[in-house]
């Protein structure tokens, strides 16, 4: 085995899976987080359950590969097949411990933009929009976002807040009546950024194997704070990799170019 015996995406799935605690209700969302729930449920969190916004509740990983949360293997064996508003109702009651949101652009306070780069009336880039992202950001108890680590994606201030994080800093969410605690971590292709308890500005918590603090700071669009005890992100274990490759046998999500 070479040094890089896993891809950046496989490491991100393993890191995301470790964010899920046993017994939690997780809003699993799309793409890599769908795999993360399967890995967590198969390893350290056998009691974790997953909600999917189209109207599903599961307590076990799907039997087959998922290209979307609506693929038949995710429906077969579900505990509950229902409507979207019922799933959102649970989240609005504070029942969802952890949500995952895919990000296009994030800023130092964890605000996400998945709508417009540039002026919304004449955007430079039109991104697909919120989906359920804004709902998760506002209503789940805590959330994690995953994205490629590039200066154009990790920016000083997003131009459009689709899914609010910590707004302009500590206390912003409480002042504006948002229910949940906001972003807990930004998991990137290079590192894991975390936030102080109570909200505020992201800081560098761990750097993925093979990368350096300087490299991460250079790839970040603001002057990224570094935790005094910054450490290396633990690599995926053989067990985690085995589950990831069982759930994504062709590398559709984890071995893309």
């Amino acid at each position, binding site marked *: 085995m070479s040094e890089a015996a896993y891809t950046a995406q496989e490491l991100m799935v393993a890191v995301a899976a470790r964010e899920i605690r046993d017994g939690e209700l997780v809003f699993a969302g*799309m793409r890599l987080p769908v795999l993360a729930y399967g890995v967590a449920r198969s390893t350290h969190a056998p009691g974790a359950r997953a909600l*999917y*916004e*189209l*109207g*599903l509740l599961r307590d076990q990983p799907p039997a087959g590969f998922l*290209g*979307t*949360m*609506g*693929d*038949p293997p995710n*429906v*077969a064996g*579900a505990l509950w*097949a*229902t*409507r*979207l*508003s019922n799933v*959102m109702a649970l989240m*609005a009651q504070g029942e969802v411990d952890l949500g995952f949101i895919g990000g296009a652009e994030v800023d130092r306070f964890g605000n996400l933009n998945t*709508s417009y780069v540039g002026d*919304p009336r*004449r*955007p*430079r*880039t*039109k*991104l*697909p*929009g*919120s*989906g*359920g*992202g*804004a*709902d998760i*950001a*506002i*209503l789940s108890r805590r959330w994690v976002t995953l994205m490629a680590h590039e200066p154009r994606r990790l920016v000083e201030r997003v131009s*459009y*807040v*689709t*899914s*609010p994080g910590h*707004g302009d800093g500590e206390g*912003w*969410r409480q002042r*504006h*009546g*948002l*229910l949940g605690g906001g972003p807990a971590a930004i998991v990137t292709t290079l590192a894991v950024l975390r936030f102080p308890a109570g909200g505020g500005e992201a800081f560098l918590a761990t750097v993925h194997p093979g990368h350096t603090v300087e490299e991460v700071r250079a790839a970040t669009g603001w002057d990224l704070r570094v935790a005094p005890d910054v450490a290396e992100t633990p690599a995926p274990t053989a067990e985690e990799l085995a589950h990831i490759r069982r759930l994504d046998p062709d590398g*559709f999500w984890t071995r893309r170019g």
Partner: protein
Amino acid sequence: MAEAVARFVPDGATVAMGTALEPAIPFAAGHELIRQGRRDLTLVGPISDSLFDQLVGAGCVARICAAWVGNVSEGLGHCYRRATERDEPRPIEVRDHSNFSISLALWAAAWGSPYLPTRTLLGSDIVTTNPDLVLADGAVLVRPVAPDVTILHVQRADAGGHAHAWGPLGISEEAGLAARRVILSDPNRVLLPESKVAAVVHEPGGAHPAPLQGHWRRDHAFHRAYAERSRTAEGYRAWLDEWVLSVPDRAAYLARLDLEPLRVRRRLPSVPVDYGDE
């Protein structure tokens, strides 16, 4: 399908589709709208996978009222980008929602309520750019969105309009109740009262490339090919010619595909229920 679309979806109509999110998307109905050259539609839905992108690229759409327009497994919607960034093939208005708020907008219409208050979207710029959302008294007021017609793809229906749909329903119930008319395209648990149903179309395979529980898996490769070809306007036009404009109907479309690898084979019937009454 051609008759149902011609009779019940005029130019300028507000149309809800793709209401179960990724599964059961009525692609066949969308393609018929394109073939009939429908114009100035307002499309309502949560995510729609690539269907809304295709309709935008064909110039059928004046307004999008949705939470997300793209391609679920591939990312960006290239026709949606060209329309919003460069007015190609025509300018469109976007009224952004989240999945929860578009559901609430349809429930508001279904219940005849002037608005529904919620705490979702507090702190999001979506409230500032969508005039159908108003910030008041620490809540977001979601104004009703009432489709002229909702198009649903279900597993089975009778001629009277009693439909059974199973698997996750997304926002199908509120979209159906809020609509003036509903078109059901076939491949019980009656979804909606028959008084809401304007037309029942037997259209097997009408959701391809979307999945349908108990029948079809999602055609990931087809979605990927569409994403790659629609990167340019020329590529999109060639795709549209091949898969929509040069086929007369859904049966001809399906005849060009080998769907057998996508057919669901493992049967998982549910336990029957008993309505015994004496």
